[in-house]
Each structure stands twice: as C-alpha cells, then as structure tokens.
C-alpha cells in the first residue's frame, strides 16, 4: 500500500480541514432531471414537453455519462474557471464506476450493498460507486445561470444526431443542444453470441449481458434464485464474475460454470503457464471450468437452457451470462461524418484524442494513436479516467498527446491479483521473472500470504484494498518451479517491452510505466526485473 503524501507538502493542514466526497451510504436519488424513457434511436420525435429541462446551449457538451465523461468534466472544471459542462447520458444513473460491479459489490458483507451500491474499502471507509453524490451536480436548467458554472447531467436521453457544421446535436426526444466543445464518450454495449441472439425469447430472457448497475442487480438477484449459472467468456469480466459467483456457490447451493474457447482463463492476456495457474485458482473458487468450448447453439427445453458445444458436449443450466466482449458505440459517426476504425472499432482520433475540430473522443469508444505503442483502443477503467482527463485538458486548450500510460488490474480470488500496463497480449513473446524461495525457507514460508487485494479505483487513482487472505492450513507445498507466486512478466515486440504484468507484486506501477515509456531494448530482462524488488512486499 502506498500512502499518497502529496498534499501535505503544500497544503497546510490548518486550512484544509474537510475531507472531500465522503461516499453516501444511500443510493442517491436520481432527480437531477426529469427522466424520460429512452426513446428508440431511430427517428427523433418532436415533443415540446420533454424539452423543458434541456438547455439550448452547452459550452462543453459531453455525450455519455460514464467514467471517461466524468473524468473529462472534472478536468474541464479544474482548468476553466466557471466552466458550464453538460453531460447527456442514456442511463438513468449519475456517473459511476464499473469495476466494483464485478468485484467489491459481490464480496460485501453488507446485505444492503446491492441497493446502496456502496462497499467498504480496505481502510474501513465506505465508498459509493457513484463518483459524486447528487449535490455535486447542478441541474440542467440552472446550468446557464449558476454563478460559478458547474456540471449538469441530463439522464435518460440519447444523442441521436450530430451536426458538425452547425455544432449541435439532437436528442432522442427531439431537443437540440448547441455546443462549443464536444466530447464523445459513449462507451459500448456488451457483445452477444450470435447463437443466443437467434435463439429466441425464452433463451434471451435467461441471458445476462453484463455492463450496468441494473445488470448487476439483476444478476445478483438471479444468483439467489436459480440452481445453475453459466458464464460464457474467459476474459476479465467473465472470470471476475465466475469468481464472484463461485464464492457464493456453496452458500447458495449454486452451480457455477464458466466456458470459453481458450485453454485457460485470461488465455488472450496471460502466457499459457500463468493462464493455467489462474484457471486452477478460479476452479478453487468453486467454478466448474469448461475450456476449448465453442458454443454451437443454445435452446430452451423443459424449463432449462441447453448449451450445445461444437464438440458435442451438452451443458444444462438455468441462466447464462455472456461476457464475450464489448461493441463500441459509434452510432453518431454517420451523422457527424466521423471516421470509424476498421481494425479496432471505435471512433478514430489522433494522439490528442481529437476527431475533428471541437470534437474529442475518450474511453472505450476511442481508437487513438498512442505515440509509444501505436494505434489502439483500450477498454479499461483507468484508461477511461486517463483519456477522459486528457480530453478535458485538450478541450480547454492543452494540446497534449496521450502520454501517461493507463494501467489495469484484476483480482480473481484471494490468491491471484495482478496489475498490468501497456500491450498485454499473450500472442507476444514474454519473459517472466518469478521469486523463488531460498533453500533456507520452509514450504510454509515460501507459499507466503502476500498482500492480495480486492481493489477498485477511486475516481482518479488506483486504490489498493487489501484483505489478508486467511487460510486455516498452509496450502500444500508445491514444486517451486511451478509456484508462480510473485513476479513480473514482460511482453515484447521487436525486443522492446510494450507490456508488463505485475503478478502479485503491488505498488510498482511507476517503474513499470517508466520502462514502457523509455521503449528501450534491454539486453537482459532479468536486470530490468531487479528494479521491481519482487522479493519484498
């Protein structure tokens, strides 16, 4: 755990005596705006009544109300005094962070966590998934008048048309908003398997595409009602949900199955030996893992779902969670005349996240040019924060390229936690350096209870939340050569480190970031690994 000692140097404690944004225990009432039902995106319907709360003009218009948008709003407000920022979101919720939806909220002891969406951090402090409570925001109708400006959120409204020549957008209810600077931070929607899409209503009714608060609440309820849940997908989201459900499986008498085409969990991210190791850990969380599984079809029979795999295996289950990727939302590309990237999807933007004059894109929907690592699109939380903040800076005149590498992390139960940065693609050659116990250590000491964490980020920074894993008996001694307890994995492209995984070693992200930034060819990666002090906590 690293204590941020940044502020003490310059901020006298006698003056700053309040703490900011203590999370609210109750779910904030979403009453900032008159929430209307999101209209179908096709033709904007002319409707006068619904316009009453929509401002006609927003100097800063942010399309989308997620992490990137919020980070941009904050950045704009910090840099442009008195800025008036309008966020328009399809959702009925104020901006919130996603990682706890597949992590902390499932592990909370608090029976009301599902309702309040608050969780306890490592230090005992409650934190809400909402970035700010309602009182932080200004109402859209007041935005133009309020003395020092502010951030307003228009919920339940979708931007369906963008007129770049006239610098204005049209909403699903027909209202129009003109802007000076615009951010597109529309994120994406979960992909579905074609076979489920075509399988009919009875199957779709029993399928969750997991992304939003309502999906979390719905799945949490379902987990208490059914006997068997199958997660399709072996990446971050699928594995985290599998672990979260797996942990509850004994108490709930719930069978948890996870299936995916790869050979192991995180097969596209981690080298095979770590993917195998991870798969074992996920199994230990109570998950029945089926690998090399390609779904051929899903049908509803006798009140059960029947999943048929290409190799003929049949799996019966009550409910399916499809965690097979994200489709970036680029619906405005057509009307706005913006380019969509054919390789990575998303809006194509330059190194400064700009699509065209006065239009920037950040977060999951942005396919941007990374000066160090090349063109890419990143779907992680920290990237949304970093890119949102950068977009906000550039919307207020900064002209800075994407430079500060974002990171990501995952926790899959008490034994597997890692942080990563850069291009972490298992098809690249890798070099892994792992800590080995000395001959003097006992097996018990060797399989140490390192600080494993369940972490979720604060709005701008990674927060290390450590729950000490308490085991009643030491794990059986494993062959040292197969114990990937702690270490660092370098991912190489043309002999340059382009990605790093910090495997159960924490608080080393700055050095990892530095190595990627340097972009040097290092003759001996073991020497680079020394910089991480992997033997220390």
């Amino acid at each position, binding site marked *: 755990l*690293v204590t941020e000692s940044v502020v003490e140097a310059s901020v006298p404690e006698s003056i700053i005596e309040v703490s900011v944004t203590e999370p609210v225990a109750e779910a904030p009432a979403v009453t900032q705006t008159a929430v209307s039902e999101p209209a179908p995106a096709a033709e904007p319907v002319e409707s006068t009544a619904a316009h009453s709360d929509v401002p006609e003009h927003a100097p800063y218009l942010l399309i989308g109300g997620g992490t990137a948008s919020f980070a941009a709003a904050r950045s704009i407000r910090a840099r442009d005094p008195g800025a008036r920022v309008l966020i328009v979101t399809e959702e009925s919720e104020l901006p919130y962070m996603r990682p706890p939806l597949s992590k902390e909220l499932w592990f909370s002891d608090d029976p009301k966590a599902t309702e309040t969406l608050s969780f306890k951090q490592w230090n005992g402090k409650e934190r809400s998934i909402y970035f700010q409570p309602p009182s932080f925001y200004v109402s859209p109708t007041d935005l133009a008048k309020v003395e020092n400006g502010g951030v307003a959120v228009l919920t339940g409204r979708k931007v369906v048309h963008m007129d770049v020549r006239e610098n204005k957008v049209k909403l699903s209810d027909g209202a129009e908003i003109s802007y000076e600077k615009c951010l597109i931070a529309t994120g994406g929607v979960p992909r579905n398997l074609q076979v489920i899409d075509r399988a009919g209503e009875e199957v779709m009714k029993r399928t969750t595409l997991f992304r939003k608060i309502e999906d979390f609440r719905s799945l949490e309820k379902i987990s208490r009602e059914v006997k068997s849940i199958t997660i399709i997908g072996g990446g971050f989201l699928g594995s985290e949900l599998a672990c979260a459900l797996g942990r509850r499986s004994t108490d709930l008498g719930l069978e948890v199955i996870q299936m995916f085409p790869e050979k192991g969990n995180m097969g596209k991210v981690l080298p095979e030996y770590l993917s195998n190791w991870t798969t074992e850990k996920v199994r230990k969380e109570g998950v029945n893992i089926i690998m090399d599984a390609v779904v051929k079809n899903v049908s509803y029979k006798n009140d059960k779902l029947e999943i048929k795999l290409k190799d003929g295996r049949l799996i019966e289950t009550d409910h399916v969670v499809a965690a097979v990727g994200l489709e970036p939302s680029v619906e405005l590309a057509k009307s706005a005349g913006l380019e969509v990237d054919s390789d990575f999807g998303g809006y194509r933007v330059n190194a400064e996240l700009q699509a065209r004059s006065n239009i920037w894109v950040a977060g999951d929907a942005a396919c941007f040019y990374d000066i160090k690592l090349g063109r890419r699109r990143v779907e992680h939380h920290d990237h949304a924060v970093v890119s949102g*903040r950068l977009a906000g800076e550039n919307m207020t005149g900064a002209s800075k390229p994407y430079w500060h590498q974002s990171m990501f992390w995952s926790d899959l139960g008490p034994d597997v936690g890692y942080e990563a940065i850069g291009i972490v693609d298992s098809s690249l050659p890798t070099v892994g350096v792992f800590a080995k116990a*000395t001959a003097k250590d006992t097996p018990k000491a060797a399989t140490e209870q390192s600080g494993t964490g369940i972490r979720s980020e604060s709005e701008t920074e990674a927060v290390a939340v450590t729950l000490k894993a308490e085991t009643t008996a030491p794990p059986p001694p494993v062959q040292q*050569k197969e114990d990937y307890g702690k270490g660092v994995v370098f991912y190489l492209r043309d002999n340059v480190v382009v990605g790093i995984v910090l495997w159960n070693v924490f608080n080393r992200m700055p050095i990892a970031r530095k190595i990627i930034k340097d972009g040097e060819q290092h003759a001996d990666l073991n020497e680079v690994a020394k910089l991480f002090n992997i033997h220390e906590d």
Partner: protein
Amino acid sequence: MSYLNIFMSKDRIIFVTKEDHEAPSNAELIEDDPNDPYEDHGLILPNGDINWNCPCLGGMASGPCGQQFKDAFSCFHYSKEEVKGSDCVENFRSMQECMQKYPELYPQEDDNDSAPSGGADNAPSDSVPTSSPESTPATTENPAAS
C-alpha cells in the same frame, strides 16, 4: 518445467532467489526531463503554478465550491506574508461558507473551526493509500516505493 520448455517456448520463465537479485540492476533507464510538457504533474507545475487538475485534489477544484477553493488556495500559495496565508482570511471564510452548504460533499469536522484534525485523512484527495499512477515526481521516481 523442463529446461527444454524454456528454450522452445516463446514464453521464457526465470526463477530468481532473493540472493540472485541482490546486486543492483545494471539496466539503464532514460533520465526524465522535469520540464517535459507531456508529462502529468503533481500539485505544483514546473512554473510554480498550482495544478488544479492534480488527482490529489480530488473534486475540490471542480465541485460547487471549486471557485472559492481555488481563490483561497491561490491566495495562500502566492501569499508573501510572514504568516503565510494571513492575508487570505476572507477567501477561506468564503470557502468555508460555501462548503457548509454542501455537507454531503464537504463533511465538516465536529466542534472545529480552524483546528486541523489529522492531515492525511482530511487531505483533499479521496485520500486512501494508493498505488497511484499520478504521484508527484518525488514518489514516482522511486521504484521501490511501498
């Protein structure tokens, strides 16, 4: 794991003991330019100005009392008085007044007008220990920071 695996696989694995890693690293890192315009900065920019966008400030500069906060803190920062900030009382009062209107955002300490009550917890960041991507240069450069 056989040695053959290590040579044949695209994924190399090395196990190292503490002793193996005792000698200092000879890996070369490029010296950072403290004035790099692309880099994120901590609370104070290289030119001495306050970085209102510092993550360490949390929502202080961007919330409803953001302007009052900036005025107060700026005044303090540039104050040349012997007791630094003593010429900023009005600004701080204004800030306090504003913050009192939003107890949800700026929880007040009990029976407390000017006395501090513990630094780190009340620092403007959502201040919990962080493995922060945005530490100030002082903490960023130390690879073994814990």
